[in-house]
């Protein structure tokens, strides 16, 4: 069933503020083959952004099946790099909803904020495959 356009523009704030730990930055650096340091690589922001998108999409009011999602596009705008010790708040906005051939195509924007400072803004285009015919 197509997602109702009434969700367009809806904003969600992550229930918890996230403190970036040395362990998670180091694990991410190691996973992408970077030397260990206290600055996160550019795509680290996805760890926070996608987790938050997942919880919004799976929320009872949207009720989308995260097991049927395909990541279509991803884009980031950086004001600065994320560091160990950053305390980040995540706000997710549903920026676009389309339904094509039984698939929901949803664009989410995620703003990672340190207090009132925008650190990284990102957009994900998510395809939710409709049921097999």
């Amino acid at each position, binding site marked *: 069933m197509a997602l109702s356009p009434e969700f367009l523009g809806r904003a969600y704030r992550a229930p918890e503020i996230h403190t970036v730990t040395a362990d*998670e930055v180091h*694990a*991410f650096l*190691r*996973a*992408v*083959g*970077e030397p260990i*340091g206290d*600055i996160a*690589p*550019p*795509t680290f922001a*996805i*760890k926070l952004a*996608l*987790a938050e998108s997942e919880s919004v999409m799976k929320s009872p009011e949207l009720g989308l099946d995260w097991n049927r999602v*395909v*990541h*279509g*596009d*991803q*884009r*980031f*705008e*950086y004001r*600065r*790099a994320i560091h160990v010790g950053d305390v980040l708040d995540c706000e997710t906005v549903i920026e676009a909803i389309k339904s094509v051939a039984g698939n929901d195509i949803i664009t989410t924007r995620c703003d990672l904020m340190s207090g009132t400072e925008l650190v990284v803004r990102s*957009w994900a285009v998510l395809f939710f495959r409709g049921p097999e015919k």
Partner: protein
Amino acid sequence: MSRLSYSSLMVGSVLPERTFEITRADLKRYADASGDQNPIHQDEAFAVSVGLPNLIAHGMYTMALAGKFITDWAGDITALQEFGVRFTKPVIVAADTPAVVIFSGSVTELLSNNSVKVEIQAISAGVKVLGQARAIVSCDE
């Protein structure tokens, strides 16, 4: 870290081609680091059951390697102002041999404030796995 010099660049300047290998152990490490534990990236039987040819890499892992390709060239892990990709085809990762992704790219525009726009290509098994893969990169003067 010392960044690439803006004055040394022009439209058409090339990011030297690099090859990255991806093993299933890399995907497990990335899954744990990113929190993306979707079984299509770790469980071949599951991946095949949902219609995929084999286990596939996380698109975001390929994007992370693309990011490393660009920031290594730029000389600074914090050099990106913008970075975007489209996931056009999956990177297929077999059990016994690593998948290979070949990155190449070039400068497509000189911008103000010592920054440049680059566009990159990512090819695995002869197939383009990223589309519209572009970044804005900060340089030194």
